[in-house]
């Protein structure tokens, strides 16, 4: 029995429908290897294993079928362009070793090296965030890209998608962790996001490509999110949510936990506040502070000029007043409104008293400068305008 044969047997056995973590571990443990399990199944002697008696007849038949066609699982992987990493491989992410129930096979697409980059951090949150939460997820992700960190998230609607889309747009690397098979990675509306992620990052999961997601697969996926990262940032999470679930996994696995605080009474951030009160999570009070906290976590790498994490690029940042001095009168009026807080065009028009065409034109100028971003129908100040005096 060679290592290669044992590895192939792992993939064959793990790909059988109905063989989850528990069954896989017990069968391999009792038989002394996946090859041995398949040998027994081929000989019709699977019931020799004590654990096999707890399997349903359908699952036993499925194992026997797979044992007779061992090449089928690999053929499915090749067809879907999916690579695998098992604990038998050197590339198996060390973080997964912190799990009580590490996946026997990690399935992935894209660049495997993304999992081994020195800085990895999860950004997670609700599927239905507020306009500001969505914008903040993007801002944090862009900051993380500047720090040369891999953004890990769940490819879901809302905060996850916003963080990963912003990472891709900023030219960063992101890893999507899915709770389904690779034939249906994430919601269909995210198909183009998945394509973008795969150009530089990876999409990984613990289910065989053809597997369909069930009720339990998404919560279980959350433990992989935190295990693959060194820290988790929670942006907007209601009390009962996948993000809070991920946060608890992070604490169990000894990962750093950062939580964006909210306002008491706000349903969207109730889970965040609870985490801050009941766990040792660090509140995110600003980007600079977040970077300072991460500096303690991460050793310096070559891309940092003086060996320390930099909150901002080497170019000195433009101050609020310098930025305003560069603008025309209409743009300045709009900048003052947006500096005070996010607003739609209606509010900009009402607060500045400008004609709609003038206000619209000034807002577009600020957008083209990158000092204002549009989230939904709301303009949010960015760059120097996000730092009013």
């Amino acid at each position, binding site marked *: 029995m060679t290592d290669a044969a044992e590895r192939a047997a792992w993939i064959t056995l793990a790909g059988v429908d109905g063989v989850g973590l528990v069954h896989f571990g017990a069968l391999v443990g009792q038989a002394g290897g996946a090859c041995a399990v398949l040998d027994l199944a081929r000989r019709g002697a699977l019931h020799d294993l004590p654990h096999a008696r707890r399997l349903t007849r359908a699952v036993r038949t499925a194992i026997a079928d797979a044992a007779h066609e061992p090449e089928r699982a690999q053929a499915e992987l090749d067809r879907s362009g999916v690579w695998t990493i098992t604990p038998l491989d050197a590339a198996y992410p060390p973080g997964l070793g912190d799990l009580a129930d590490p996946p026997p096979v990690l399935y992935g697409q894209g660049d495997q090296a993304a999992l081994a980059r020195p800085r990895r951090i999860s950004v997670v949150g609700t599927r239905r965030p507020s*306009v500001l939460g969505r914008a903040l997820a993007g801002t944090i992700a862009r900051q993380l890209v500047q720090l040369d960190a891999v953004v890990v998230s769940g490819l879901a609607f809302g905060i996850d998608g916003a963080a990963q*889309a912003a990472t891709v747009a900023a030219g960063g690397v992101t890893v999507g962790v899915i709770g389904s098979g690779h034939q249906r990675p994430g919601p269909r*509306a995210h198909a183009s996001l998945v394509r973008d992620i795969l150009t530089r990052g990876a999409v990984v999961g613990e289910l065989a490509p053809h597997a369909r997601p069930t009720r339990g697969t998404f919560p279980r996926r959350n433990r992989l999110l935190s295990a693959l990262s060194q820290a988790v940032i929670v942006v907007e999470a209601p009390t009962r949510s996948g993000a809070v679930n991920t946060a608890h996994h992070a604490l169990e696995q000894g990962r750093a936990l950062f939580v964006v605080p909210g306002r008491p009474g706000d349903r969207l951030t109730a889970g965040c506040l609870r985490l801050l009160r009941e766990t040792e999570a660090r509140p995110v009070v600003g980007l600079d502070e977040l970077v300072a906290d991460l500096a303690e976590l991460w050793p310096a790498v070559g891309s940092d000029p003086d060996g320390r994490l930099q909150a901002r690029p080497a170019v000195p940042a433009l101050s609020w007043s310098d930025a305003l001095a560069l603008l025309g009168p209409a743009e300045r009026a709009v900048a003052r409104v947006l500096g005070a807080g996010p607003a*739609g065009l*209606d509010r900009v028009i009402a607060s500045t008293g400008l004609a709609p065409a003038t206000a*619209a034109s000034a*807002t577009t100028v600020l957008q*083209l400068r990158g000092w204002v*971003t549009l989230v939904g129908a709301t303009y949010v100040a960015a760059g120097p305008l996000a730092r009013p005096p």
Partner: protein
Amino acid sequence: MLATLVTAVVDGLAGSLIRVEVDVAPGIPMTRLVGLPDAALSEARERVRAAIRNAGFEYPASRVTVNLAPADRPKRGAAYDLAIAVGVLVASGQIHAGGGSWALLGELSLDGSLQAVSGVLPMVATLVRAGHRRIAVPAANAAEGRLVAGAEVVAVQGLDDAARLVAGPRGRRAATASRRPATRVSAVDPHGDRPADTTRPASLVAPIEAVDLADVRGQATARWALEIALAGCHNLLLVGPPGAGKTLLARSIPRLLPPLDDGEALEATVVASVAGLLTGVAGLCRDRPFRAPHHTSSYAALVGGGPRLAPGEVTLAHRGVLFLDELAEFDRDVLDALRQPLEDGSVTIARAGGQVQYPARLQLVAAMNPCRCGFAGDASRPCTCPTGEPERYVRRVSGPLLDRLDLRVEMERVPPAALLEGDPPEPSVQVATRIAAAREVARQRNGGVPNALLSGSAVLRVGGFDGRARRRLEEVAARQLLTARGVHRLARVARTIADLAGQGSVDEATILAAANLRDPAGRPWELAA
């Protein structure tokens, strides 16, 4: 004995001439109707028989053959009744056709009185063009028929009136000689339920409660976008939660639209005539059409067709505005059927017996909620839809349809405080003046076409974009990853903004203002961040 009379039929929006030939010959008493009649027309036999008896004439106890020529064209409706009945009277010798040549239009009641028919305007126009200037029409259609220059239209109340006309002063004696006294069975006036009100002007404006912009508080962006849309005939999509004022804003549209010019008014009046909306009104349709069909409307109601082959709402909105509230609630098939009129300015309805084309050069204004519950993206209320539902809801409107819209505005609910404070906003009259002026400027520059209908190359050629504006256009296109279609859309909208501001050329600031209005298809919600 053979009698030949002239009547007309509506085919699409055009009329065509029909000859009614009636032959009464000795033989077994029976009546045959030939020349591809439909069901309503086949029943003409029974209506004509009863009407002739009840008007005091005799139905001949002979072999009666009625031919509708040309025989290869399918005939619909009941407008031939009068011509057939008079033809029977002439052919059976009860009256002499001494009154010269008359064209006859009208549907008969069993008591011999005449019912109004639809499409009298194009039918009369066709008859006049073919040289038949003397035309008898039902009294309720007389005003409509008289809109045609050169027509000598006579209103007739019933079959006996028509018989008197055709018989002329000399034939009348022959007619009365054989006549029994008319039986008036009905106790009610046949037209009593629909009084002919000839003071009401014809109109294709939907009966809505009109709103003045002075009563629309807040919503500065949406007001601005509506002004641009109406000035340049750009198709507009309003997206916002319930209570944001989408419908209110749409109800202000009729007062903002300039009236139809002479040519447009005639087109609109013909449409109204064929749709049977002109009964008892005087004058051309001068108000620009505004149609607001409900989202439960069927395919036939919106696009046209149906068993009676009538024009649909898209045709009634020809040269005007079609307002579709709750766009995502319309049937998918119905929405996709809008693509042809938006692209070609007409709809084609194909039938086994041939096809008809109706004009449908309309401007679409649509409103929809951002999701089923209506509150996705709302700052003050959470969306209660299941995950993924908002995205599904928005996708109900197909990409190709969205791609034919030029402007999209996200509306937010106006905070209650803003409804009470401040000066009242600009009233409709002032906005309407700007819109009319901008339309006129655009029409003269573009050769009669509104900005929205300019081709991509034409708008860049005649638009008067200065050098800086062109560079900005390129920059915005590159930054927002615009397609060629998107660049042209941006250029058209910018041209309209400049027209509203009275600027001859399009400058940089105008391009930037136009770029602020959103691409209608937008990117998926999720990637907007």
